[in-house]
């Protein structure tokens, strides 16, 4: 059975402007993907593409004015979008664990690290406190925190960014989740620490057999880490497929530009910057969201786009998917 199935998810920011007119920012426009047990899916895209919002929509962490207006999120066959908070709370932190991007400010500053781990285990799994405590020490060991006994007595403000991120990973592992959502888990960390955390994450995913959704803007992370990739732009997933297929033969102009714009290619002198503004979410164009930035755009692109399957399991949201020329699509101005 599919572990997580997101179908046609629409999340809007609904607010009122100074004239009391309703303003709608269409931040997610029909996001669909699915994740099988044991797979690792990477969601990439530029800032404002809706990556984090997708994660928050899945676990019901949206805050007003953000609101899911249509679509469904099914986890183990259960619909999450209309689930009451109390029931959702039994899934969050338990079957679905999250690792967030600001570990130091996310931990409760007034509770010792070990007590936070124990509390999380007590809330979801119950059982004797000593067992929770033992598990907390095991998990701290598993995420590579030296001397778990004394680390458990630390306050969050005494941890470095990398250590805090390891603590968050330990928090995520406490209740043996089936799905791990890592929302830019290495953004605020040093490059060397980033590599350590990613290696750790990879080994933990394999060891604890969790399906993992990793959100990043770093294609290198996806390439080394994930089985599948979903490229987001303007609140839509523009291309999905296995990492191997997508990197070998990107079918969407945006993916092509994104891959062409990696720093390695810059150094080889073969790439041009990925230019242009993200689309105005208050006023999305009809048809393809990329049309103003796309070198291939024609009148056809102003009509509704359907997902085209370019190879088995490899989809692209483009009228010209599979029919593009070899060269990367470049159109800098927008």
């Amino acid at each position, binding site marked *: 059975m599919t572990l997580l199935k997101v179908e046609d998810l629409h999340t809007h920011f609904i607010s009122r402007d100074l004239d009391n007119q309703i303003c709608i920012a269409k931040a997610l426009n029909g996001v669909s993907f699915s994740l099988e047990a044991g797979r690792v899916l990477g969601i990439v895209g530029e800032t404002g593409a809706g990556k984090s919002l997708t994660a928050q929509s899945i*676990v019901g*962490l949206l*805050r007003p004015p953000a609101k899911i207006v249509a679509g469904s999120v099914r986890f183990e066959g259960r619909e999450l979008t209309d689930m009451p*908070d*109390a029931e*959702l*709370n*039994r*899934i*969050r*932190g*338990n079957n679905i*664990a*999250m690792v*967030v991007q*600001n570990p130091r*400010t*996310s*931990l*409760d*500053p*007034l509770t010792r690290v070990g007590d936070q781990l124990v*509390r*999380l285990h007590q*809330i*979801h799994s119950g059982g004797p406190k000593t067992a929770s405590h033992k598990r907390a020490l095991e998990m701290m060991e598993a995420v590579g925190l030296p001397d778990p006994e004394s680390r458990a007595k630390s*306050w969050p*403000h005494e941890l470095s960014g990398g250590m805090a991120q390891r603590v968050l990973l330990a*928090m995520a592992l406490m209740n043996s989740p089936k799905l791990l959502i890592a929302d830019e888990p290495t953004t605020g960390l040093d490059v060397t620490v980033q590599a350590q955390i990613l290696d750790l994450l990879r080994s933990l995913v394999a060891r604890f057999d969790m399906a993992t959704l990793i959100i990043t803007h770093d294609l290198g992370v996806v390439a080394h880490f994930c089985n599948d990739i979903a490229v987001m732009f303007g609140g839509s997933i523009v291309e999905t497929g296995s990492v191997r297929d997508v990197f070998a033969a990107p079918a969407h102009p945006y993916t092509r530009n994104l891959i062409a714009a990696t720093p390695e290619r810059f150094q080889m002198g073969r790439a041009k910057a990925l230019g242009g503004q993200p689309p105005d979410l208050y006023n999305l164009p009809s048809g393809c969201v990329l049309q103003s930035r796309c070198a291939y755009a024609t009148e056809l692109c102003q009509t509704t786009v359907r997902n085209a399957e370019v190879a088995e399991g490899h989809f692209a949201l483009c009228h010209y998917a599979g029919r593009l020329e070899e060269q990367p699509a470049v159109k800098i101005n927008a």
Partner: protein
Amino acid sequence: MTFQRFLLRRALMVIPLMIGVVFITFMLVRIGGLDPVGRLAGPTATQAEFDSIRNNLGLDQPLWKQFSIYLGNVVRGDLGESWLSNRSVLTDIKERAVISLELLFWGVGIGALVGVPVGLRAAFRPNGRFDQFTRVLSLFGFSIPTYWLALVMIFVFFYLLGWSPPAIGRMSLLVTPPDMITGSYLIDGVLTARWDAARSAASQLILPVICLAIVSAAPIIKQTRAIAIEVLSSDTVRYAHACGLPERNVRKLVLRNSAVPILTYIGTEVTGLVGTMSLIEYVFAWGGLGQYGLNAIISGDFTAVQGYVLVLAVFSVLVFIVIDFVVYLIEPRSELS
């Protein structure tokens, strides 16, 4: 740092502050244009009597000399004598301090007990009906003049409804005060099992306490709401939701993380409320420190004014030391400094 060293450092830091306070009040009362001599001498006094009073009070000396004598006395713990009553200022203040502290304790205590939960509840649903309702209420509390509120309360609850005793002080004239132990009629009445006295003291306390509670609760509601809203939008709370913490635990988390700024705010409010206290005590003929200070200012009783301001400054410092220590106990990131 140990607690003793913290106290010692604080005390050392306070000394220059206190000298400054003494200096400023000393000079301010003297350049304020008040002439206590004329008041003491009366309308029929001769010039010779004037001069002798002036000489007795030492007001004919140069200012710097007056100040150095006064400072020397203060250092030895002598705040001088009131020029009007010839009683020791320190004794007067000691007697009245307890009376005022009792009122302040109940007023701010009830203000905080009401204000903090109300502010929290408003914060959990910003712009909800409860929030809008309490916003109007706290606006009232902010803008009503204290003495007017006190007068209206006396008018309504004593004159119109007859629910409360007349505002003639801390105890009904028909009840003998209990033996003095702490100075608070309510506590002394309970301690000596004089239930009639305790009851009378309590019923006299109700109106001024409510008055002070209203005045102190309004800003507490507003501050608590603002603080809690900030905590609610923090990464910590978002992550707590992501971990599936039940609503009850999240609220506890919000409360704990708001506690330090709320406490600090209440501390500053307490020190700011002493001015309000004067007016409330005056209207209710309370006879506490606030009324004493107000009378001293009006009648130009220099030593009493100086003593009053100095004691208030010491009180503020004590309040902040207590707040710092409480914050140190609940906040692991803080250090005693």
